[in-house]
């Protein structure tokens, strides 16, 4: 049976591993590389679906663990899925709940069967198994679902534990594929695990390649490991994955990381960062810099957050006004979130354009100069980019 997902590479960078793809999903056709804002509880932090669309965003994330707890599958089924419930016409991706094993570790207990969580809301125990995760994700109805995986912190030292987690994740993938009830409308991505061990990552990828799936996620990273380890794991994971299928790098959303990881051949990214940081009054600007708008330097700064940004916030509001309202009024959160989502979307669009016009290396160099105006680049960026044939110092004076 054909997957309800059609991916084809539209353009390839002739220098790096970057590519532009067209990802056709049941609810939207998405251009990759794409950043997917995170709407954990079936809402993107105060924004109306229409406001999300206005930022040229047509694929967002929701969270299985949270939605399984509240409102639960019964309500989701009655609402005929999350798209309808939250009035979002475009594409959705759900993570599996695996990540919460790490983030809510103290509430969980792990066995081969699944993870037992104690709900922080009502102290109820729930057992999240691969089957249960699929049941919730089928009720949500996202265009792309994630398998439940055994997520261990990327900081863990115990190789045996990492290996066990990787192997268990593959077993859980098979159970997930078996339990998936909506194969004509929803896709299931397996997740490449293996921690920071290249050989385990390789074994994992090989096992996943034996399964019939629509795309792949690269997991177990962005958990506090060194950037050096991070980029190497991303790089070798994309090497093992087939060119003709989309690759989703989980939990990445800083501008610099997006540029590097697009160069390493990743197609999809997600992160709570742009909207979370907005709630604290931090606005994203060129080069991935942050304006902490609550600081008094902005009290008489009558420019928009970003001069050429087309978003409603930059069209109507100044930094000075936002300075007086961030951390006080919800409206300020919404305004900065709108801008930050727009920022991410524009960044990805500029990456795609550069790849299509085959000037991505120049784009990267220009971007990095903006990101590090003093010209001192972190070693991991220099190394990662050198690996895909981009010399950061080349062309600079």
């Amino acid at each position: 049976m054909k997957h309800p997902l059609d991916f084809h590479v539209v353009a390839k960078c002739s220098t790096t591993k970057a590519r532009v793809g067209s990802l056709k999903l049941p609810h939207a056709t998405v251009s990759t590389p794409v950043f997917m804002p995170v709407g954990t509880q079936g809402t993107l932090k105060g924004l109306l679906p229409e406001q999300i669309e206005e930022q040229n965003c047509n694929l967002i994330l929701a969270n299985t663990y949270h939605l399984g707890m509240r409102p639960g599958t019964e309500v989701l089924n009655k609402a005929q899925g999350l798209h309808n419930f939250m009035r979002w016409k475009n594409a959705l991706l759900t993570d599996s709940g695996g990540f919460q094993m790490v983030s809510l570790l103290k509430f969980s207990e792990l066995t081969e069967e699944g993870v037992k969580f104690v709900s922080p809301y009502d102290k109820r125990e729930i057992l999240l198994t691969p089957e249960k995760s699929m049941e919730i994700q089928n009720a949500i109805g996202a265009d792309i679902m994630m398998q439940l995986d055994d997520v261990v912190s990327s900081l863990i030292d115990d190789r045996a534990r990492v290996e066990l987690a990787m192997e268990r994740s593959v077993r859980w993938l098979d159970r997930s594929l078996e339990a998936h009830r909506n194969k004509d409308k929803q896709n299931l991505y397996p997740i490449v695990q293996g921690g920071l061990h290249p050989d385990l990552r390789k074994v994992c990828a090989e096992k996943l390649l034996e399964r019939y799936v629509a795309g792949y996620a690269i997991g177990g990273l962005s958990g506090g490991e060194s950037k050096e380890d991070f980029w190497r794991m991303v790089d070798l994971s994309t090497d093992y994955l087939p060119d003709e299928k989309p690759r989703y790098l989980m939990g990445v959303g800083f501008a610099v990381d997006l540029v590097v990881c697009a160069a390493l051949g990743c197609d999809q990214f997600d992160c709570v960062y742009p909207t979370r940081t907005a709630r604290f009054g931090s606005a994203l600007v060129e080069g991935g810099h942050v304006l902490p708008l609550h600081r008094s330097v902005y009290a008489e700064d009558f420019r928009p957050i970003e001069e050429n940004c087309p978003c409603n916030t930059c069209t109507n509001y100044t930094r000075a006004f936002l300075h007086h309202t961030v951390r006080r009024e919800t409206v300020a959160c919404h305004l900065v979130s709108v801008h930050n989502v727009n920022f991410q979307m524009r960044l990805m669009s500029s990456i795609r354009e550069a790849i299509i016009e085959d000037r991505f290396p120049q784009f990267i160099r220009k971007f990095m100069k903006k990101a590090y105006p003093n010209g001192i680049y972190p070693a991991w960026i220099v190394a990662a980019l050198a690996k895909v044939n981009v010399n950061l110092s080349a062309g600079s004076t």
Partner: protein
Amino acid sequence: MEPIRFTLNRVSAGRMGSVVFQGSAPFFTPGCMLYAQSGSVPHLTLDNLQRVVDVPWPIVIPLQSVYDMLKSVKTFRKPLGEFCGLPARNPVIIPLHEALREVPTGNNDSAGVAIWKPAGRVRLSSENLVELISVFKPSAYQALTDGDTPQNCSNKRLNHSVTRSVDYLEECLKLHGEQSLKSGVLASIQGGFDVKSRKFSIRGTLENESRVSGYIIDGFHYNGESTALLNYSDIEDVLTATLKELPEDKPRFMLGCFNPDLVMKLVEAGVDCFDSSFACLCSDRGQALNFTFQDVKLAVEGPRYLQLNETHYKDDMRLISENCKCYTCTEGFTRAYVNHLLVTREMLAQVLLQLHNLHHYLKFFESLRSNFSKS
């Protein structure tokens, strides 16, 4: 140009008219101005506000919430409304206090009137106020006034409130004139729940009648949630006696989060201008207004709102209100979804509720006006 031009079209049970703020499009009364805090209608970005009303629309921006913006607006050199992202021609009315925050009693003295800005309390003098107004350049503002008159306050307090308010008005008008400010001055009628004091306040105020653009009937509540519980019977006698003494030719404002039942009575009694803080209060409390007002007299029967965080809405897949034309209802957001957002404390709950409640509250005023024209 006069700061406020009021046209009274008709007086029967209540008044119908229109207010033109500094050449703006007429604002029809009885009417509901938008309620803002820190320069925004709570929870609504400008694009979302435009999903409810066509701006420009008169907006009430309480001084306490924008007090700290003084220095910024001064450097900006354009009026407060534009600083807050509103269109240039949008009328801005500045009262002293936020309708949704209770004013603690017992803080006013001869040194001035206490207001609570975000960073804490300040005592405001007429000089302070007029300086702020000279920078903020609103269409109209509330002259300094002491409205701290709880229902059972002492005669001495009543006396202070009334006499100081008359003096403050005099001071504000003087400073206002010296600086040739263009804003309209709204004089507050104080006197709490005492008819004699009210009359005294009116007499004092009317000494400056020609320099005043409208009246704020103040001192019947101290803002905050409790205002929503105010009943007409609590204030009827004093209010009607007060309104009788006021000249007909100027608009009468009553600010606060009044429930629709009270609004109907106040309109009948002859109050012209209100604000939308009640809609916001409901949104903040997880309530969706759902009273009907096809026939306003009947409207006051039955529940006024749905308490959407109650568990039984968890799987209620109906719209908040079947025939409602608001954004939330026409876009198909259900009670169950709003319930989910409330339960998970997601900010979109208040956005969707505010889109609905503000629409509903404004429609309610529209129906009050059309009922008038029919009768």
